[in-house]
């Protein structure tokens, strides 16, 4: 009995000494050049596949993935955030990409084994120890669907070409062309900017930059822009009407809710117009804004994912899905700039 205990103790000591040597003395070779030991790659990859299959549940918020505007938005994000590792569909990955360990699969190959819910889970969560990052912010599964929609076109070999920025000669900020690959080119899901004050747009961009406003797409986009270019971009986009910005015209219900509120819902127009000055610190004008964008943002406020304004958090607290639809439809139907000029 005593001998058994002594052997166990000796083994435990040996284990501790080995662990200290590997971690503390650097005995393990971390070089990516040599690859994994036999069997390790298989174990890691199988773990990854089974883990995703276990966790990716049937989604209840999956939008229409054949929506061309959603696909275009996903393509815009893919172009800068995903293509550096997974390459454009049909293009050969660069030599550097191919030297990664594990090597990121080319995108056509990457999507083959997964259904949309699993793709959504992978893009939202990332994969530990593989180089695949999670979405830059939590709670924005709605944005992730845009990328999934794009990947579904890749699977069908029907993906639209990735957008390339064109030099915008009217803008003093060189990055305006990059912004315009989405703003002004995609008519839904992307907010209209020419209805806003430059101060509001500056604040919004800075909030994205600091991570205070959650959006994986916009946080990625604004991190590619030099911070000193932000005020110029805000001025430019606040003034230039872009194609694709259009109002839906016909009057709809929702006016009463927006202008009088209920006992639980404040009156939107008191801060966002029309008919009243925009609240300070700058509140966005909403007349003429994109309906899908408004719906998403109101949900984010109500669910506490978007924060940063105590007033707006309090205002959206009691909104129902029906309220959100009514309000978004009404604001989207208005002529831009109506009555905010005070």
């Amino acid at each position, binding site marked *: 009995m005593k001998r058994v205990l002594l052997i166990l103790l000796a083994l435990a000591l040996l284990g501790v000494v080995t662990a200290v040597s590997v971690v503390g003395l650097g005995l393990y070779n971390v070089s990516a050049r040599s690859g994994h030991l036999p069997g390790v790659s298989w174990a890691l990859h199988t773990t990854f596949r089974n883990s995703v299959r276990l966790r990716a549940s049937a989604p209840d918020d999956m939008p229409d993935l054949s929506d061309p505007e959603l696909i275009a938005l996903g393509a815009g994000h893919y172009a800068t955030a995903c293509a550096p590792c997974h390459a454009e569909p049909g293009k050969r990955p660069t030599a550097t990409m191919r030297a990664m360990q594990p090597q990121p699969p080319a995108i056509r190959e990457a999507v083959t084994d997964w259904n949309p819910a699993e793709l959504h889970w992978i893009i939202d969560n990332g994969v530990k120890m593989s180089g695949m990052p999670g979405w830059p912010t939590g709670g924005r599964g709605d944005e992730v669907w845009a990328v999934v929609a794009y990947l579904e076109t890749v699977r069908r070999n029907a993906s639209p070409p990735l957008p390339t920025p064109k030099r915008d000669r009217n803008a003093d900020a060189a990055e305006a062309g990059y912004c315009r690959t989405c703003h002004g080119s995609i008519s839904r899901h992307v907010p209209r900017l020419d209805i806003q004050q430059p101060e509001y747009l500056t604040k919004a961009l800075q909030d994205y930059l600091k991570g205070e406003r959650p959006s994986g797409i916009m946080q990625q986009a604004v991190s590619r822009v030099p911070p000193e270019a932000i005020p110029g971009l805000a001025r430019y986009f606040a003034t230039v009407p872009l194609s694709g910005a259009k109002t839906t015209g016909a009057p709809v219900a929702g006016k009463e809710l927006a*202008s*009088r*509120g*209920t*006992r*639980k*819902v*404040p*009156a*939107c127009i*008191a*801060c966002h117009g029309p*008919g*009243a*000055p925009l*609240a*300070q*610190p700058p*509140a966005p004008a909403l007349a003429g804004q994109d309906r899908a964008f408004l719906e998403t943002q109101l949900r984010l406020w109500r669910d506490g994912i978007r924060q940063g304004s*105590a*007033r707006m*958090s*309090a*205002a959206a*607290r009691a909104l129902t899905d029906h309220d959100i639809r009514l309000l978004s439809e009404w604001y989207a139907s208005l002529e831009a700039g109506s009555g905010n000029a005070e």
Partner: protein
Amino acid sequence: MIAVLVMAGTLCHLAGSGAMIQSRPPETTALDIPGPVPTERPQGPRCIRQRILASVLLLAGCEGPQSALVPAGVDAQALHLLFTTMLGGAIVLWLLMNGFIYWFSHRHPAAFSEIAARWLIVLGGVVTPAIMVGALLVWGLTLLPDQRIAGNGLRIRVHGEQWWWRVAYQPPGTSGPIISANEIRLPAGRRTEFILTSDRVIHSFWIPALGGKMDMFPGRETRMSLQPETPGRYRGQCAEFCGASHAWMAFEAVVMPPEEFDAWLKAEAKDARPPQQDSARKGQQIFRREGCGACHTLRGTEAVAQVGPDLTHIGNRHSIGAGRLGATLDDIALWVRHTGDLKPEVHMPAFPHLEPAELRDLASYLKGLK
């Protein structure tokens, strides 16, 4: 006897705790309630003196704007009479019982005859208590319907919110109700009916100086009526725990001579007064710029929302924040800047970004809404 006095004193203190209302939060003023907590119990005559002093101090709590022991209306008087009768009866009973114990144990310790003992037990232990409790029950039950007898015309609908009061006056012969909040004015000498209901949780409507309380239930209407007699300002308080700021859910009840009340109600029905001075005009700009109209109504302006209290005539009210603070310019500024500190979990967001000068202007605009 002292025990009864101390108990009564404690009761009074509870009933009269309205004397401590409208204290500010600790960080804003040094208005501390003196409350020495002795670590050692004092002994001897000093102790007795202190206890008597304490009882007298506690009895002082019977006064104040929120005391059922200083009735200012017909209904409170009826309850007060019931209470004092019970208190008096309890004292007499207590003296009798102890007198008997003393008499039979010390003065006449001789044995009772069995017959006398039986009679004493049946009369003193069964018949007398049954008659007394029965009489009290009949009296108490006859008081209950009086809480709901029909009024002289004016009806007030009160809606309990977390944590404030929506008030709508419905005088006879008018079309729409006159909307107000967080203060209830009543004509002296007339009986006013209340229709009570609530939004999310159960509240209870109670003006101790004027009458009994009545619960307010979501989705149900309860009724009561009050006939105040003595003009003055009293304090009402939510008497059913309703959330984080239940203790701060109070209101002023102002009893006015009938003619004055009629004139006031007429003025209350009018639209908000435009700002008169420069400061108030600036305040109006701030009110609009900050989007206050998203939640509050100022009748006659573009502010028509219904989430928060109607502010059309807030300048006339004696308190703000549902009895949380007084109604001075400083109080209003403090409220707007520190809303959540003053009233935990309140829905109204604080406006800490406003400069002191802006807060003053805003307060002077609101104060001018007479």
